[in-house]
């Protein structure tokens, strides 16, 4: 976990008591009202992902990885985003993040290629896994 955070981000910690001024200011500025909360912001400072509450290690890593994939998507680096989303499905298949990652992997591929079969293939993949997820429902309109 430390490696992922240390190598992929500028990590900033705000402690509610030790950094009381920053907590007050940034809490208001970024709408944070509860701890633990982890925000992933792109390099322009725009929030791309939010994790509120404690998560076990694998779930947390999957969520942080989602944030990195969303940051790649936001800068229109769709090939990198797709790779990152698929890596989440492969590495953390039993987390809640996996279904979301599978959905956005398909969207990223479509955005990179403009090929609608990327969406149809994603809808078919949801026929085999994560059928009960909201992401499976969202992908259902892509079935050819």
């Amino acid at each position, binding site marked *: 976990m430390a*490696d992922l955070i240390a190598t992929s981000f500028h990590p900033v910690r705000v402690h509610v008591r030790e950094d009381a001024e920053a907590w007050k200011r940034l809490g208001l500025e970024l709408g944070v009202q509860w701890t633990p909360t982890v925000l992933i912001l792109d390099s322009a400072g725009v929030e791309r992902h939010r994790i509120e509450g404690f998560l076990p290690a694998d779930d947390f890593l999957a969520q942080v990885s989602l944030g990195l994939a969303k940051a790649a998507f936001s800068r229109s680096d769709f090939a990198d985003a797709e790779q990152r989303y698929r890596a989440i499905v492969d590495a953390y298949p039993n987390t809640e993040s996996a279904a979301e990652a599978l959905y956005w992997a398909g969207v990223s591929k479509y955005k990179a290629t403009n090929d609608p079969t990327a969406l149809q293939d994603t809808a078919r993949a949801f026929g085999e896994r994560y059928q009960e997820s909201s992401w499976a429902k969202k992908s259902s309109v892509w079935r050819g």
Partner: protein
Amino acid sequence: MPVSHEISWSRNYDRAKQEAAADKKPLLLDFTAAPM
């Protein structure tokens, strides 16, 4: 052997934001009440 990294947490959001703008790396902000 893989290299293991320690997290070097900044406590200065404004400076980290400037660094992120310069090198295009995203920011991770950890709001916590846990004992340090």
